[in-house]
């Protein structure tokens, strides 16, 4: 319940990182979808029912039936697990092994909304969602799916190129990682912030301010093997 970060080991033996989404973003996504469906419905009332009378009304009934049962299924199966609401909230449905959802799974998980919505306001779904370590509702368990935060494209830069400088003491692995991480993220920060962070490494670089930052970049380049 507290840890929503999940790893699935693929057949190749490496871990897939899945960040299970909790009830709040999912409920918000559901609301967005609800509004979208309402908007489609209202638009169709204007387009079909009013100008075409009875036949229009019949078509409208068919469409609202489709909106109820197949709107999420179509989007999830065709748009890589994203309904417009999930897209807006940065969520997506994947099957439990990290692969995209298929038609069957999308159909099953949405069919069982009937049960998750019992007795009022998705109470069953919310309860199971809080108990389950993957944050799944019953429909997700049956369909073997889960809702995850879609991996955002991370904006990481390569470390800035600087003359490589050997550090004058042995660095432990996590210290090396910290120096390299600084060199990769530093260029995105203001000069003052870079200097402030570099000050923390004074015992290593023996200077402060801009000079410390420059020296850290040098060490990072040395660690990365640019020589």
């Amino acid at each position: 319940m507290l840890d929503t970060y999940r790893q699935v080991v693929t057949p190749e033996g490496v871990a897939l990182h899945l960040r299970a989404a909790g009830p709040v973003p999912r409920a918000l996504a559901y609301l967005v979808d609800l509004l979208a469906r309402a908007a489609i419905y209202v638009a169709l009332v204007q387009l079909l029912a009013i100008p075409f009378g009875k036949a229009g009304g019949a078509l409208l009934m068919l469409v609202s039936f489709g909106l109820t049962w197949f709107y999420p299924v179509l989007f999830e199966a065709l748009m890589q697990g994203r309904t417009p609401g999930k897209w807006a909230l940065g969520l997506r449905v994947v099957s439990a092994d990290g692969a995209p959802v298929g038609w069957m799974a999308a159909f099953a998980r949405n069919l069982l909304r009937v049960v998750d919505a019992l007795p009022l306001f998705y109470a069953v779904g919310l309860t199971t969602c809080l108990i389950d370590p993957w944050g799944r509702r019953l429909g997700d368990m049956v369909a073997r799916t889960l809702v995850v935060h879609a991996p955002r494209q991370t904006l990481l830069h390569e470390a800035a190129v600087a003359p490589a400088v050997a550090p004058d003491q042995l660095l432990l692995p996590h210290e090396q990682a910290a120096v390299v991480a600084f060199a990769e993220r530093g260029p995105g920060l203001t000069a003052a912030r870079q200097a402030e962070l570099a000050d923390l490494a004074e015992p290593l670089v023996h200077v402060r301010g801009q000079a410390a930052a420059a020296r850290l970049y040098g060490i990072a380049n040395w660690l990365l093997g640019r020589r």
Partner: protein
Amino acid sequence: MKQERFVERHQAEWREFEQWLERRGDSARNARSTRREWRGIRDDELPARHRRLCQQLALARRRGYSAVVTDRLQQLMQRGHSMLYRTKPAHPRRAVEFLLAGFPRLVRAEWRCMLAAALLFVIPLVTIFVAIQVKPDLASGLFPPQMLAQFEEMYDPSGKRDLGRTQEDDLEMFAHYIGNNVGIGFQTFATGLVAGVGTVFVLIFNGIMIGGVAGHLQAVGHGDPFWRFVAGHSAPELTAIVIAGGAGLRMGLSLIAPGQRRRVDSLIHGGRRGAKICIGVFAMLVFAAFVEAFWSSIGWMPASIKYAVGALLWSLTALWLLRGGRNAAYQDDEDAA
């Protein structure tokens, strides 16, 4: 190996893999149209490339390379994974095969639940029907008087209008039947998850309602138009409701009596089969709504033709459910799962 050397050595491979994903992986149509111009990795090489990438990712993590490298490899790996392990796309031929063979097989495989559902539905129906014949006052205990009057008006034997409705167009009734019946069918199934209680309730409730209406109309002498109306679509509609109920009971059972599976695995198993059955139920109910809206309502058709068509549909439904997919070499790959 230092990170920089590692990246230098494998950079080209990663680029090729990325290009393949962008140009050929994302859209099958796009991939087909550019098959001849494509000069990158061959499609059949992709699994091997993916495994190499996974190995490189594991190495990069093991050696503690920075986020620039591991995150990039991680993202590539996840994209490759979702490409290699996606489910088969839906194909029209597979859909037809499922409806003709797979669905009847699934239904037969769960025949005990189907039988239970049928009994839960038919026993109240017949009981109420007979009871109302004996004691017609019972109907007014089941329905409010306005509703009874409405039923009587709908099946008025002297009236010239269409059977089973007041004034609406066929298309409108079709839409109405679909929305109504498919909703009931799906709910019959899904509420089975609550230990089967919901399904049992829906089945008995619908049995009583239908038996009540039929019994009342028969008792007040409006039986002929009612039976003429019902003869056609009753076969697909009633069997579909019973089958949805059977699937719901199956799912409820897999919660109560998971057998040698973990409870959650048993639910998954029951739910997947149930959802498949619901696809068939959906098709049956759409067909039933079609018959109900465009055939059952024709008022001038002689009773003999109506009953003949009804009998034909009943026997076709029975034949389909009992014989469908029996001798086919077709094996559903998820049957075993």
